[in-house]
């Protein structure tokens, strides 16, 4: 006990002396900044209130409550893509995947502005918002998510997405696709068009097919699911394929790139798609997940490269193109880390720590990230892929010997435990990000 007390006081002294970051202690960082008499230790604007942005805002405040943090997010409720496939399957209501910003405001003292960030002046360090406000920053952190590449597939634009939803941003699009699935007659076909890499949530389309199959099995047992894919391999492919076979027989058909799986044209009004070699497929419900790029504000800030994504310094997640702008989440080039909510949260913490360090004038810490992506074959059958990542020679690397897939021969009880852990994970990450739970 006294050893511990000694250890802490020694460490604290060292920290104060060496780093000036006493506030990294939870006992101190638990105090909200509101009402604090300390002078501002810097101004940070965070754009985007999803997994990356909300986490970063919270962890900057935990790191140093004296930093002034303003979060800019147009929506008062954020709907998560994780578990939106359960909403599609009718297992969850949309409200159960909605999260708000009360904890960030009330517990951590983050200022939250519900407006859209429209432009950034990286020289003047200014963000202009849709409500006419201009925010000044010392450090800007953005977690802009993805935008669809409209018309990358002929005929698939914003208007077409109202007829053939992408449902790749959760919310109204999720409900629209749910309505279409509900309106299907037994025996009709649901078609999904899936893009090539990279895209948000690599296992997501295949979990979606699984959970829609779970719904069909109960309510439309003669219906089929056709996945038209612009690639030849996909995340957790062996585990998904085995799960589909075991749970749904031949209900799900997957057609890869080499077998003419790439959709090149969409007629949303007819719910018809055409593949590369001219085959036409008609669906009763059509889900087009189009190719993607970093959210538009990243382009406005000048942090995207020719790929449409954002290159970053792997130690800090600061843009390699524009100083004082940090970018996390799906918008970044962070392979081998996937574009997942889990990764965005993990990157948000690393960038938050780097910003706290930079504002204190000290060097950034050594980052370590973990990622686990659970997918549900059905609500009692879970599979996962995990990874641990570090930086070596200025590259993010997959730590050798760690991570990997659920065992192919796992028992039913392990599959069931993974499904329960998927729910546990969702509750934990949403608590860690927004302080709210489903």
């Amino acid at each position, binding site marked *: 006990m006294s*050893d*511990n007390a000694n*250890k*802490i006081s020694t*460490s*604290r002294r*060292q*920290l104060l002396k*060496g*780093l000036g*970051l006493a506030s*990294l*202690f*939870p006992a101190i960082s638990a105090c909200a900044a509101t009402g604090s008499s300390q002078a501002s230790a810097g101004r940070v604007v965070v754009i985007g209130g999803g997994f990356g942005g909300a986490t970063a805002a919270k*962890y900057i405040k935990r790191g140093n409550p004296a930093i002034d943090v303003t979060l800019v997010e147009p929506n008062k409720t954020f709907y998560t893509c994780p578990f939106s496939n359960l909403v599609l399957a009718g297992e969850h209501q949309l409200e159960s995947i909605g999260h708000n910003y009360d904890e960030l405001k009330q517990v951590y003292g983050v200022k939250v502005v519900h407006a859209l960030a429209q432009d950034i002046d990286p020289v003047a360090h200014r963000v202009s918002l849709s409500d006419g406000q201009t925010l000044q920053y010392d450090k800007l952190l953005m977690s802009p998510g993805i935008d669809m590449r409209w018309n990358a597939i002929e005929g698939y634009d914003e208007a077409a997405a109202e007829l053939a939803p992408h449902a790749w941003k959760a919310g109204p699009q999720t409900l629209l696709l749910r309505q279409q699935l509900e309106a299907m007659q037994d025996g009709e076909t649901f078609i999904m068009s899936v893009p090539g890499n990279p895209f948000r949530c690599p296992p997501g389309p295949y979990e979606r097919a699984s959970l829609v199959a779970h719904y069909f099995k109960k309510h439309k047992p003669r219906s089929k699911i056709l996945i038209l894919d612009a690639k030849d391999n996909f995340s957790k492919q062996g585990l998904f394929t085995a799960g589909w076979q075991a749970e749904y027989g031949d209900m799900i058909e997957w057609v890869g790139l080499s077998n003419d799986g790439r959709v090149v044209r969409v007629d949303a009004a007819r719910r018809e798609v055409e593949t590369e070699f001219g085959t036409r497929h008609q669906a009763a419900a059509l889900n087009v997940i189009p190719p993607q790029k970093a959210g538009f504000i990243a382009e406005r800030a000048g942090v995207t490269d020719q790929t449409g994504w954002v290159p970053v310094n792997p130690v800090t997640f600061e843009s390699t193109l524009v100083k004082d702008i940090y970018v996390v989440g799906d918008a970044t080039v962070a392979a081998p880390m996937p574009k997942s909510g*889990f990764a965005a*949260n*993990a990157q948000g*913490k*690393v960038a938050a*720590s780097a910003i706290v*360090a930079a504002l204190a004038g000290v060097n950034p*810490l*050594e*980052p*370590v*990230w*973990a990622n*686990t992506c659970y997918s549900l074959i059905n609500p009692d059958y879970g599979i*996962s892929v*995990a*990874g*641990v*990542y*570090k930086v070596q020679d200025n590259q993010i690397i997959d*730590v050798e*010997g*760690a*991570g*990997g897939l*659920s065992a192919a021969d796992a*028992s039913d*009880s*392990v599959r069931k*435990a*993974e499904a*329960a*852990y998927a*729910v*546990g*994970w969702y*509750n*934990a*990450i949403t*608590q*860690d990000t927004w*302080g709210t739970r489903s």
Partner: protein
Amino acid sequence: MTRSILLHKRGLHKLLLATFFASAASLAQAEEFSPAQVQLLAAACANCHGTDGKLADAIPAIAGRPVMVLEAQLQAFKQGLQPNTTVMDRIAKGYTDAELSALANHFANVDKH
């Protein structure tokens, strides 16, 4: 089945003992990292265990548990001695022994409330 459980228990027992004798060494190892560095390492655990490891749900809370139990459990995951594990065996293998010790120390010292 019984046999593998026995083996597993014996393995964990050995680890607990080993951890007991190594605990002084572990504390020394943990000192290799600055408190800020340990905070950042530990932040990665919150994605599944909640902020500060306090969320008790399908996935157990880790805050405030005895350091020896946490470290033995992490080592059991790393060494593949914990049967029917979901992901922690795959994750623990990505951390050095010193990192796992530092994490065990960190979470043992978090007030669970």
